[in-house]
């Protein structure tokens, strides 16, 4: 339990840093770190397949997508960076206080009622669940991927002259 709490604290710190840091690239690195810590937590919660997906896709691929997007936008000048740092500091200064106060209030007052648990599932393999029980999800995933590809093609299509 102590290790879980340490990991959760690291996750929260990583999220806070991601939100508060000025440079977008650092923010993306923070997001990748968040995904990596989340993958460790998932592994500890007996979900290794989801953890591997989280680590490879969310920590890797999404970081690549974000860094590509950031690199295509305009680079900020040093003078503008100093001004923006002050603006951001004023806007995001409240976040750590909000998190600390909300955390203290939740620890003090959050009462979760005891509840009954359902019977444990007979199927223990995620692949069996995905292929045999939730195959409609796979169809939905395929449709969403095709829609995403179509969307990207439309966005990056050069206009006809």
């Amino acid at each position, binding site marked *: 339990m102590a290790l879980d709490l340490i990991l959760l604290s690291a996750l929260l710190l990583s999220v806070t840093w991601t939100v508060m840091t000025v440079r977008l690239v650092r923010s993306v690195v923070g997001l990748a770190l968040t995904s990596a810590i989340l993958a460790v937590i998932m592994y500890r919660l007996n979900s290794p397949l989801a953890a591997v997906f989280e680590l490879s896709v969310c920590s890797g691929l999404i970081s690549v997508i974000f860094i590509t997007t950031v690199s295509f*936008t305009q680079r900020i000048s040093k003078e503008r960076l100093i001004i923006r740092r002050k603006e951001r500091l004023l806007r995001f200064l409240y976040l750590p206080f909000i998190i600390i106060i909300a955390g203290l209030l939740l620890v003090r007052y959050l009462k979760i009622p005891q509840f009954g648990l359902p019977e444990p599932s007979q199927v223990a393999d995620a692949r069996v669940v995905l292929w045999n029980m939730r195959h409609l999800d796979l169809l939905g995933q395929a449709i969403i991927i095709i829609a995403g590809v179509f969307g990207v093609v439309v966005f990056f299509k050069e206009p006809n002259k």
Partner: protein
Amino acid sequence: MNPDTFELFRYFIIFIILIFIAGVYCVLISFNLIRVLIGLEILIKAVTLLIILAGYICDRVALAQAIVLTLIVIEIVIMVVAGGVVLWAFKYNKTIDPRRLSNLRG
């Protein structure tokens, strides 16, 4: 549920709520479309952790993993398309500040 598992569940719920608060704050306060997407990612991370926790507590880890895999696929597609929208907005407006996107119709 034994008391240790229940206490762990309670702490997980508290941290998930705090991560969700950070994500909502990021989405609401940011004046940069990429940072809004990062806030959205943080919200999705909180939900992912909640699903995995529910599967662990109810001993339905396989189902939770299957749902998370679907969630990750949808997340990727959303981010790719949203990245395209951001680049498209930058191409036509030379800014990704939502306050300055003044040539939108409607």
